[in-house]
Each structure stands twice: as structure tokens, then as C-alpha cells.
């Protein structure tokens, strides 16, 4: 009876453990079968990951890999929000510029990478460019949409109380749009991650991409899998953090826009 109560209370946590066990367990078994000569077991990969961390190689590699990501996301954020603001405020600019970003959203931008490499070589510049073209469209479109859809009521209120144009933009429109802008930034970071990895794998491997390609070439599959696992974990953890931040910062604030 007591056992059942304990299970019930910690049900969610236990289920998560069970789930992890199932997945990692199947991984381990598949590795042992083995499903393929290139499929290491779960434990082997974990060991390789551990080695990477202990020897510090992982951190050095990430310092390299994250450079274009951070730079690219920062530029995309600043430019993207600026352009998005303009798009939201000016119908003319919206007509002119939005279609480009809409096309960029649907189009498989990754195909542009060889072009960028041709134009800007294989250095940091083209990698930053790749991150930017992946991240900017969603930031611009989200910001533009949010600004355009600011409730007319509070804009009118600002006008009624003699707010200047810049007052209305800075004190009313931007704060009102910030939840969606932040969501756009989060999606931009997510797209930027893909851009960063693509540039590593496709342009030149430095950093984590280097670990992946090198270990693959010497058939050190545990290390290769470990590196890939680390990227996925990092991205997922970071994005979940952003999402949580978004909920805490903006969670309660959008209620009460209009009447109950």
C-alpha cells in the first residue's frame, strides 16, 4: 500500500526514468548486437563523452563552434528586431520587404551555403552569414507581426494622453510586442544552431565539427556519437532554458489586455 502511494506521488519522475532507461537500454542492446559496425553501445559513447570533457577537448571545441553562433544570433537579433520594427510600423516597408523574408522562411536556405562559401571563403565570415540567414527571417517576421498587431486600444490611449511617436513606440508598442519578439529570438537561436552546425560540417570543421569529422575518419565511432550527443543536449537544454525564461518573464503579463 505504501509502495503504491510512493509510486503515485513520484509518478512523473519515475516514468521519465523508465523512459530514459528504455531508450538508453535499447541503444546499449543495439550496440551490442551490433546493428552496424558503426553503432557503438550507449556505455561506450558515454565513456567517450566523459573523456572529451575530462581532457577539455569538448570545451575548446565549443568555444570555436559557438563563435559564429553567438555572433550570428547577436547580429540577427539586432538587425532582425530593427527591421521587424520598421516592417510593423510602415505599411510601405512591409510591402517591400516582408515577401523576401517570407520566401526565406519557406525556402531551404541551407542550399545557399555553397554560394556563401564561394563568395566569402571558408572563414568565420561565411559561417556568421550562414547563421544570420537562418535566424533572421523568423525574427523579422515575428517582430513585424507583433508590432503590427499591437492592440489598437493601447496605442489610442497613448495618443489620447499626448504621447509622442517615439514614446508610443518605445513605451507601448515594443513592450506589448516583447513576448512574441522573444519567442522569435528563441526560434532564431534554434535556427542559428542548425546554421552553425551546417557551417561546421560543410564549410570547414573547426571546433565540434572537427571532432565529428576526425573521429569518423579514424572510425572512432564512440567519440563521434559523443560529440553529436553533446551538441543535441546543449541545444535542447539551452532552448528549454530560453523557453522557461520566456514563461517567467512574460507568463502573467498578457492577461488583461481587454475586458474579462
Amino acid at each position, binding site marked *: 500500500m505504501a509502495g503504491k502511494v510512493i509510486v503515485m506521488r513520484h509518478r512523473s519522475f519515475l516514468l521519465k526514468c523508465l523512459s530514459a532507461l528504455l531508450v538508453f537500454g535499447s541503444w546499449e542492446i543495439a550496440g551490442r548486437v551490433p546493428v552496424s559496425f558503426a553503432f557503438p553501445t550507449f556505455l561506450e559513447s558515454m565513456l567517450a563523452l566523459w573523456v572529451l570533457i575530462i581532457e577539455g577537448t569538448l570545451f575548446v571545441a565549443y568555444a570555436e563552434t559557438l563563435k559564429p553562433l553567438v555572433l550570428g544570433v547577436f547580429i540577427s537579433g539586432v538587425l532582425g528586431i530593427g527591421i521587424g520594427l520598421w516592417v510593423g510600423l510602415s505599411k510601405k516597408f512591409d510591402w517591400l520587404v516582408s515577401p523576401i523574408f517570407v520566401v526565406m522562411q519557406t525556402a531551404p536556405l541551407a542550399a545557399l551555403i555553397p554560394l556563401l562559401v564561394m563568395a566569402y571563403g571558408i572563414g568565420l565570415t561565411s559561417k556568421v552569414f550562414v547563421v544570420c540567414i537562418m535566424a533572421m527571417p523568423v525574427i523579422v517576421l515575428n517582430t513585424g507581426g507583433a508590432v503590427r498587431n499591437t492592440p489598437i486600444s493601447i496605442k489610442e*490611449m497613448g495618443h489620447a*494622453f499626448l504621447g509622442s511617436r517615439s514614446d508610443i513606440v518605445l513605451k507601448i508598442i515594443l513592450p506589448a510586442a516583447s513576448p512574441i519578439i522573444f519567442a522569435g529570438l528563441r526560434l532564431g537561436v534554434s535556427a542559428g544552431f542548425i546554421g552553425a552546425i551546417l557551417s561546421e560540417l560543410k564549410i570547414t570543421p573547426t571546433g565540434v565539427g572537427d571532432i565529428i569529422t576526425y573521429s569518423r575518419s579514424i572510425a572512432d565511432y564512440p567519440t563521434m556519437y559523443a560529440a553529436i550527443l553533446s551538441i543535441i543536449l546543449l541545444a535542447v537544454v539551452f532552448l528549454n532554458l530560453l523557453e522557461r525564461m520566456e514563461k517567467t518573464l512574460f507568463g502573467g503579463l498578457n492577461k488583461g489586455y481587454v475586458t*474579462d
Partner: protein
Amino acid sequence: MSAKSQNTDNAVSVRNVYKNYGDVQALHDLSLDFPRGQLTSLLGPSGCGKTTLLKIIAGLLPASSGEILVNGQPVSGPGPDRAFVFQDFALLPWATVLRNVAFGLELRGVVKSEREAIAEKYIADVGLKGFEHSYPHELSGGMRQRVGLARALSVDAQVLLMDEPFSAVDEQTRRKFQEDLLGLVKNENKTFLFVTHSIEEAVYVSDQIAILLPRPSRVSEIIRPSGFRHKDTDSIRRDSEYLDIVDKIWSSLRTYVE
């Protein structure tokens, strides 16, 4: 009482105002006077243009032709002489009550310490003392509207424009608001322009009721309830003149109900 309603000047005058939206004529040659220091209601069924007229007076909408005079001077945009209370409150959801109430002053460049002091006074006046640091989503609908009212009072404008301010709250709160409004009109030295579609409400709170009819929007008549203005708030609703006026207005308006 009657001296008040006779030789007062008009805080706001509307002269031959037309408002067109494309082919639709929202307002047709409207002329109306709003006596200083009194509460005038704009009453009418949906689509009679009362909110449109109020927003034109507020300077939030341009008139297609005609003019609006405030204190004898023509106006075309918002000004420090008029303050607006919105039907859906128009509060900043991310700001505290204090900041919301002080927002009108903030937009005018008043220093923070000064505007917060003024805001605190009006927050207490509308009965929200203690809620200065709450957020709109933590308040009930009635409380939120009081924040909107406090904000409009804080900027110390001579004309207060209220766009169906009580329509978004529940019936009990609404009755309380109507009573409080009577006290406000008596104590504050302001002119009130009040848009409503509720006949009882208009007759209860107003010194003057302008009845607007739609298609085309025009002023059909002006009623000045006088007999019960001095009575205390509880007895007004049973006064026979009050009931008579309500019935009279209803019978003339019922043909326009869609």
C-alpha cells in the same frame, strides 16, 4: 441647481460635424453643446455614432468636416484639456497600477517623484489604495476601470471623455460606479462627456442627455432631468420623474433597436 444649468458657458461645442467612412455617413451635420461643469450623456442604440463623436471630440479621429471647439478654441488633435476613459480600460499589462495611473503624466514629461505622488492621490480617491504595486491581471474588471479613471483624473484635464466606461463590468459594480460618478461630478470641477447605451444609466448620472439616432446619425432631442438631481443616490432610482424620463426615452428609441 437651475442657476447652474442656465447661463454657463460651454466647455465643448460641436459645430456641423460630418464624418464619412467611404460611402457610409457615420455622422451627419451634428451640432451640440456641452455645458461646463456638468455631465452630458450621449445616448443611443448601436451604430448611432456616439463613440465616433466622442473620439472626434477627443481628437483621436478626424472629422470629415465641421469643427470642435474646446473652451472656445477649435481643436483637431488630442490636447491637455481633454482626458479619455476607455471602454476596454487600455491599461499597460506589464506595468503596475501606479505606473499605469501615472502614465498620462509620464507622457507629458512630468518628473517621476512628482507624477507618482499625484498618482497615489488619485489611486486613493478611486478607492484602490494598497493596490499601487499590483498588476492589471491581478485586478477585477471593476478595479481595472478605476485605474483607467484615476489615470484620466491625474492629468487634471478640464474635460473628461468617457466611452461606455461601465459596460465591461458586472451589474453590481456598474451600479456602484454610477453612484460614485455622481459624487465625482459634484466634487470635481470638470466637464464630463459620457457615452452609454443604457437608458437608466444616462438618466441616473446626467445633467443633460443628448439622444442620438442612427442612419443618419443626428441629435434627436436633448433632455435635462432636473427634479431629482439633488436627491441622494439611493432614492433617485425610485423618483417618479426619473422613471417617467426612462420610459419616455425607451418608447422613442425602441423602434431603432435592431
